[in-house]
């Protein structure tokens, strides 16, 4: 049970002078139950990559396997794939359309051809997973706040009971508390339901805090694919790609350069605190 990409290439407007490489020889594996962070600056190919994972874009060459079978094989149902690999786009405004929140969340399961009871049951379950209470069911999705819209949009995908959940910058434009709430719910989904999660984010601090593995895209290539600690150790290379490491990593390096003996592979505030206290305590 996994998604594997083998030498996937994607070219825009192939065969014309405008041809551009959006993905270049990307090979990777996403195992069941992993929590992965995908980072890269705007235009690095990360959006193109996630759209390949559920078949919205078709690779120019290379192969993508879902649970062992190629998704490009004849007879493979893309519709089925899309309900297994749920993708939530960045702007909830792009998918909310129904008269009320509840009906909107029902759209996904209804498209799967489920019965009315089953559909409603799933919608209720999905909404409770993202912390939207029953008092919201009859509200128009257009009257919600930014954070609430985002949660309803996630519920709209969760209602299809996907095995993999891909979130494209779910916290963009939210205030700090809103960011923490959404991410907290995603973490719960991952921990309690064992759902595979791929989080696309610009916030290194968030990625460092939550994910098991980071994939870094640059100019359509997968440049790093490792644990957060290992990836952030390359903070100088990340900077050249227009990315960065969490601020605490810089603090650790700055301290070390100033002659303060401590380990530098810290990526969260707690780790940094512990490391500094450890050094100070020893003396």
């Amino acid at each position, binding site marked *: 049970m996994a998604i594997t990409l083998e030498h996937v290439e994607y070219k825009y407007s192939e065969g014309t002078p405008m041809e551009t490489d959006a993905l270049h020889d990307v090979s990777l594996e996403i195992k069941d139950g992993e929590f992965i962070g995908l980072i890269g600056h*705007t235009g690095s190919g990360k959006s193109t990559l996630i759209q390949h994972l559920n078949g919205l874009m078709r690779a120019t060459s290379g192969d993508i396997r879902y649970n062992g079978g190629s998704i490009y094989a004849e007879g493979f149902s893309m519709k089925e794939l899309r309900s297994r690999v749920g993708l939530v786009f960045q702007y909830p405004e792009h998918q909310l359309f129904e008269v009320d929140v509840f009906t909107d969340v029902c759209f996904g399961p209804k498209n799967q051809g489920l019965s009315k009871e089953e559909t409603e049951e799933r919608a209720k379950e999905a909404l409770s997973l993202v912390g939207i209470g029953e008092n919201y069911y009859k509200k128009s999705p257009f009257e919600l706040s930014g954070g609430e819209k985002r949660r309803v949009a996630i519920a709209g995908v969760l209602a299809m009971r996907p095995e993999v959940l891909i979130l494209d910058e779910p916290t963009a434009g939210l205030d700090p508390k*809103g960011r923490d709430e959404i991410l907290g719910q995603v973490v719960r989904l991952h921990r309690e339901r064992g759902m595979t999660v791929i989080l696309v984010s610009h916030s290194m601090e968030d990625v460092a805090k939550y994910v098991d593995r980071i994939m870094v895209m640059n100019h359509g290539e997968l440049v790093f694919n490792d644990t957060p600690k290992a990836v952030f150790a390359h903070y100088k290379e990340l900077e050249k790609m227009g990315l960065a490491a969490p601020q605490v990593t810089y603090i650790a390096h700055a301290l070390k350069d100033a002659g303060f003996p401590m380990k530098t592979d810290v990526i969260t505030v707690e780790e940094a605190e512990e490391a500094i206290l450890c*050094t100070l305590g020893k003396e």
Partner: protein
Amino acid sequence: MGIIKTKNLVYNYIKRDEEEKIEEVSEAVKNVSLDIKEGEFVAILGHNGSGKSTLAKHMNALLLPTEGTIWIGGRDSLDEDNLWNIRQTAGMVFQNPDNQIIASVVEEDVGFGPENIGVPTDEIWKRVDECLKAVGMSAYRTHSPNRLSGGQKQRVAIAGVMAMEPKCIVLDEPTAMLDPNGRREVIRTVLELNEKKGITVILITHYMEEVIHADRIIVMDEGEIVMEGVPEEIFSRVEELKKYRLDVPQVTELAYELRKKGVPMRPCILTVEEFVTEIMDTYRKHSE
């Protein structure tokens, strides 16, 4: 009197149902009084829905106070004759870069404001040249805005406001939809305008890293000003900020946590350099 001054400003949003009957009145801004001096860099923080955007729109007379008064450049916004003067005094940059660029060519968009206020053609060209240079976008002057990155679009929007030669520029979450690179570009541009041209800047945001260089920070919650002071002072009150759904930079948080654990530190650390100096002091004392 400063460039922007409000006295007991109140604004109520009135929600009406289909028959135009009043359904709900919500107080977006409650009794706000503040005074911003010329040349100041003021940051307004607050979570979504705290009333900071509503307050900002008063500074450009896009909204008029329900009660109380706001003076922009000494002019009362309730007096209709002042409208265009106010909008020339205080320019405004909005959140979504796509929804505020009007023309299909960068330089034409920068010229839009001056065209509206009847600036002669030669003067428009002079201003457009200057403003594009000031935001570092001269190389893109004949490009279509659609091909620019978010940060570049916001810089064009800033140039468009600058071309009207305002004394003050109000930025309403200009970085909320940008990636980290775009955010840095925009903030650097804004800082430069404030320092080099002496333009009053009012920056509304919820990214704490962006406000550490401000002269003054105002925190809003539920339509009221709840905290006000220089960055060092505001950021030393970590718990209070968290109560208002705000964050502090990691370095500030780390210093705060260490201080709680008994490591001697100044109460407000905003940059990595400050942090390193403080820790090294302690470390040397320890080693002795």
